[in-house]
């Protein structure tokens, strides 16, 4: 990897770790179950659920990095905006009071449009002017701040829940349990991940995304309109981040900085899986989610993000290219 990219990566990790680690974690401590085994199973279930939601948000981050080598520091804000936009449509006093399902669909569409808009209005012109990666990264930090505070002004600091599916009784799963809402969210998230895999593997645009990630110039030389593919990736990433935000708001709660706090885990998942590999981001996020939840079996819940970061560091020491990443080819 080029030193410039490494530098940006290190900077991104530091920047995102400090606030995330000092903040209170968003997950819940696993309730004191009857036996350790039951609690472990519960933590595993919660971890998988948490992991697949992180995966949905981090796939876009990974694809954006894969195609234009930009670390989108503002990706967490796409998550927040998805959740708060859905909240506005669904449960805000001033909103139209839609049911959550159409509100979620609209939020995903809005996220995709937002992703497309920043690509067309910001990143494409900057790339055309030959702006360096470090400068672009700093612009993403600025964009993140801007969007976050825009949400703060429009949404406020009060955590809130959606109007539907809020309180539910649980279904037993052996010694553990899950609410129908959480089960549905988890299954939907898994379906979405499978859908993304199919898209990347089987469709023309998906293959083009992989081609652009592999070699941008060659893709262009082959006849692929690389700018269009990059636009597609931003829209896909924006839409998925918004969907992840709605899911996260459903199983936890909607707050103005939820996405920013999640960003550390998204980064961890992406890096853990091997930068730029979409499947790696999925696998890495799942690991991060499970580790974060399982750690609460032994340690205070406020430390769960720190454990995720620790796993990341350990894995990178052992396997610098990430779980599914290919070692950089020499020659």
């Amino acid at each position, binding site marked *: 990897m080029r030193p410039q990219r490494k530098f940006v990566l290190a900077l991104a990790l530091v920047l995102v770790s400090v606030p995330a680690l000092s903040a209170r974690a968003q997950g819940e401590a696993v309730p004191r179950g009857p036996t350790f085994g039951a609690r472990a199973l519960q933590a595993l279930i919660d971890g998988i659920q948490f992991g697949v939601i992180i995966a949905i948000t981090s796939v876009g981050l990974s694809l954006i990095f894969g195609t234009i080598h930009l670390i989108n520091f503002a990706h967490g804000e796409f998550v927040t905006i998805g959740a708060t936009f859905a909240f506005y449509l669904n449960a805000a006093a001033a909103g139209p009071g839609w049911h959550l399902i159409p509100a979620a669909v609209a939020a995903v569409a809005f996220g995709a449009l937002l992703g497309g808009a920043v690509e067309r209005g910001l990143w494409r012109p900057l790339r055309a002017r030959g702006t360096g990666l470090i400068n672009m990264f700093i612009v993403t930090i600025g964009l993140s701040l801007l969007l976050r505070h825009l949400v703060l002004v429009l949404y406020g600091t009060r955590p809130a829940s959606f109007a539907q599916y809020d309180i539910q009784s649980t279904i037993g799963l052996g010694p553990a349990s899950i609410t129908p809402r959480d089960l549905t969210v988890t299954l939907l998230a898994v379906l979405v991940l499978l859908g993304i895999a199919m898209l990347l593997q089987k469709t023309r645009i998906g293959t083009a995304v*992989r081609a652009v990630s592999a*070699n941008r*110039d*060659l893709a*262009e*030389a*082959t*006849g*692929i*309109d690389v700018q269009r593919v990059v636009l597609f990736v931003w829209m896909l990433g924006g839409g998925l981040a918004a969907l992840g935000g709605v899911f996260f708001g459903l199983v936890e709660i909607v707050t103005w900085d939820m996405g920013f706090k999640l960003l550390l885990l998204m980064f961890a998942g992406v890096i853990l899986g091997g930068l730029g590999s979409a499947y790696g981001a999925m696998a890495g996020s799942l690991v991060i989610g499970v580790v974060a939840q399982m750690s609460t079996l032994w340690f205070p819940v406020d430390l769960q993000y720190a454990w995720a970061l620790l796993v990341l560091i350990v894995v990178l020491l052992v396997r610098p290219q990430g779980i599914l990443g290919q070692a950089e080819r020499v020659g």
Partner: protein
Amino acid sequence: MSADEQEQEPVLAADDIVAGYVPGVDVLRGCSIEVRPGEVVGVIGPNGAGKSTLVKAVFGLLRVRGGTVHLRGEEVTNRPAHELVRRGVGYVPQLQNVFPALTVEENLRMGVYLRPKAYARRATAVEELFPLLADRRGQKAGAMSGGERQMLAMARALMMEPQLLLLDEPSAGLSPLHQDHVFDRCRMINSAGVAVLMVEQNARRCLQICDRGYVLDQGRNAHTGTGTALLHDEKVIELYLGTLARVR
């Protein structure tokens, strides 16, 4: 060549091209090149002369700072490469010429990205030219040897039925047998009516099969002539072919 053919509009005309990678440093300093219909044109020159740079600039992968590029009379200077592909230009880069993580079939499909419906028909046609690809459709391109990748890269570039094929050192790093194979294919492709612009290290071989050749040196045209004329030019022999060439 008949006078009639010479009258024809060139497939590719690049005039006075100035281009470079780093701001303020021009690698090409006024380079001109022309390819007429049905021709095989060779570009030779020492390492670092700017041969690859010229091809990239012509093809829209590198910004042209001065000069113009015309395709069959239409100006295409600084148009994006995918647009040139649509206008019938194929390009095989010197290095990294396939998508390693994609299968052979996916590589070929990307070659016809702009016209996906033509895939089946074109795949059959290029597999006739490169039979080894037919048995390897499902294999990852990254698992192929250098020679096989070269075949795949040429096949991919031919998927859109180009009228002009740009080849950057197609024989580099190949065994003599594979080099023969590549030059053979170039001839076959050319005899089907495709004009070929070929950059080659293997200058002698290249000039032998070329209609015309250009010798590039330090970003400028140094010599131009028919393949045979360049092959016997004392200066060209001295500077670029090596004195061993005289032995023949």
